[in-house]
């Protein structure tokens, strides 16, 4: 095995034992990036020189015995997190040359824990998309099949982990943007509880739904990264002022005696037969671990997509009003006066999907339509959350497929926005309710495409998610495969 193919915990062991150095790990990662990146396009910006310099510092620290949770580990960051002094584009032309004057809180925290950054990964423009096809910097390809999309919006972060172009990565999830690409690329991806991880320095899409989380090669690494990023941040007023448990302590506890709810609304028509089969096997596996499964109902599930595509664009239209060509970002050279400059800068700087969502959101919030759309959607959102509150009175965990289908072809859904939106149908409810969710690999289709199973838990129950995910991963006996690149 090459060093870049190993997990965080495996590499940490080697570093501690003196069997390898951070410099060797970083070199292995960049060797891989140089070999496969022309085909994958997982990154927008690479940080090779800084990464190698930081690796030297990490090796010095190790020699002095200063080994932290992520010392010397190369991690990729979705290009939605502000990185001081390093270009942060959010996948958009409008921020093509934006260099943030500060770091996002999670960037600071990861650096404090000793992590090394490999670069900024590709994403749908402003995280609006399910395939990375709306990125101004071109589509990322799925490492398992280069004709297919990796999912999105954090497709670059998922593909980079799957293709061993980093050891782990960070993404953000507004309606499934971590879990959906994790499932389609065959890696682990977690969306924590709203407020568990600080959003300070995360470029805002839909502020009541956005949450940051990890992509990793296994569940233990997910726990390690959660330990690194979770926690209250005085700079972020929606972050939860509550202590963070040691997430690794949940990994070996097992799930004997648990009740796992299977929501009937998530096994509907339109779910691919091979996805369904893989998830049924996961259900059997969980039952074999001493958990009881029961059918439950989340009756408002079918309204989630409509609610999401009112609330998320409404919040986005307000958040994206800041891109006006004045303080930072693209300015059109053709503006005749101030208003004309605003319009031209925004129209030339944003891509079609972002404009579509700004239009939807502006319409939904405009005078005369507010009650019919935004207020109505916010009321139904309360009912969706109530469904989950009721469900968690009867079960510990909810189990569903992560996505309705395996990865689809590049270009397959770009012509019809609603079809694209439907690929998030099983992940959106989590964000509306603010609860945590994790996607874990659960097998492959006959064509060799990965499938993911999703576990959901109540507010702040990330530990339980890691507990069941780790127990499942250990006992699922999945074939170990790597993409053939």
């Amino acid at each position, binding site marked *: 095995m090459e060093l870049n193919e190993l997990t965080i915990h495996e590499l940490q062991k080697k570093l501690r034992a003196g069997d390898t150095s951070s410099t060797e790990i970083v070199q292995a990662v960049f060797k891989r990036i140089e070999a496969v990146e022309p085909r994958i396009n997982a990154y927008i910006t690479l940080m090779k020189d800084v990464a190698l310099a930081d690796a030297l510092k990490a090796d010095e620290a190790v020699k002095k015995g200063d080994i932290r949770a992520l010392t010397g580990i190369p991690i990729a960051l979705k290009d939605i997190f502000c990185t001081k002094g390093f270009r942060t584009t959010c996948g958009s032309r409008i921020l093509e*040359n934006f*260099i943030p*004057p500060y770091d996002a809180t999670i960037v600071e925290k990861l650096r404090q824990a000793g992590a090394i950054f490999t670069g900024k990964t590709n994403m749908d423009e402003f995280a609006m998309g399910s395939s990375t096809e709306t990125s101004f910097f071109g589509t990322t390809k799925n490492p398992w099949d280069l004709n297919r999309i990796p999912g999105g919006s954090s497709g670059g972060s998922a593909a980079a982990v799957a293709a061993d172009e980093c050891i782990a990565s960070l993404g953000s999830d507004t309606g499934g943007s971590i879990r959906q690409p994790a499932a389609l690329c065959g890696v682990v991806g977690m969306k924590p*509880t709203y*407020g568990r991880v600080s959003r300070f320095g995360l470029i805002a899409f839909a502020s*009541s*739904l956005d949450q940051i989380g990890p992509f990793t090669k296994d569940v233990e690494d997910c726990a390690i990264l959660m330990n690194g990023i979770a926690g209250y941040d005085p700079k972020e007023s*929606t972050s*939860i002022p509550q202590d963070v448990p040691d997430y690794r302590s949940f990994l070996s506890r097992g799930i004997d005696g648990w009740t796992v709810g299977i929501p009937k609304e998530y096994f509907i028509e339109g779910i691919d037969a091979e996805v369904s089969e893989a998830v049924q096997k996961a259900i059997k596996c969980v039952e074999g671990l001493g958990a009881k499964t029961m059918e439950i109902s989340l009756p408002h599930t*079918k*309204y989630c*997509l*409509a*609610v999401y*595509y*009112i609330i998320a664009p409404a919040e986005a*239209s307000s958040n994206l*009003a800041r891109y*006006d*060509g*004045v*303080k*930072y*970002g*693209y*300015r059109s050279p053709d*503006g*005749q*006066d*101030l*208003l*004309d*400059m*605003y*319009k031209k800068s*925004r*129209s030339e700087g944003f891509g079609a999907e972002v*404009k*579509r969502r*700004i*239009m*939807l959101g*502006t*319409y939904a919030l*405009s005078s005369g339509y507010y009650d019919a*759309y935004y207020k*109505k959607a*916010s*009321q*139904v*959102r*309360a*009912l969706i*959350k109530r469904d989950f509150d009721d469900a968690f009175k009867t079960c510990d965990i909810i189990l569903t497929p992560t996505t309705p289908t395996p990865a689809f072809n590049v270009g397959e859904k770009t012509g019809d*926005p*609603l079809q694209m939106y439907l690929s998030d149908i099983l992940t959106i409810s989590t*964000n509306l*309710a*603010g609860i945590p969710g994790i996607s874990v690999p659960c097998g492959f289709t006959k064509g060799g495409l990965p499938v993911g199973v999703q576990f959901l838990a109540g*507010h702040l129950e990330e530990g339980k998610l890691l507990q069941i995910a780790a127990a499942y991963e250990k006992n699922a006996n999945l074939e170990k495969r790597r993409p053939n690149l």
Partner: protein
Amino acid sequence: MKITKEEVEYVAHLARLEFHAGETEKFTSQLNGILLYMEMLNQIDTTGVEPMTHAIAQKNAFRDDVVGESLMNEAALANAPDGRGDFFRVPKVIE
């Protein structure tokens, strides 16, 4: 029709966007499709349901009013498309 071409043009103005003729038609048709899909929300009786605006029940997050770190002028202006001295320059606003 949920939304007309004229309404799309009006909303574009509110959002400070402008479209070419062909784009307006395309957006009108796509937005119509999406808004029709959203009609399904009218099947639900939401009388008396309190709208949910946040995922977690949290009150105002107050903190003490103490001076902290802030951006220096130079850093704040570094990304400006047209920054001069201590100012952001914009095209003329008043005739």
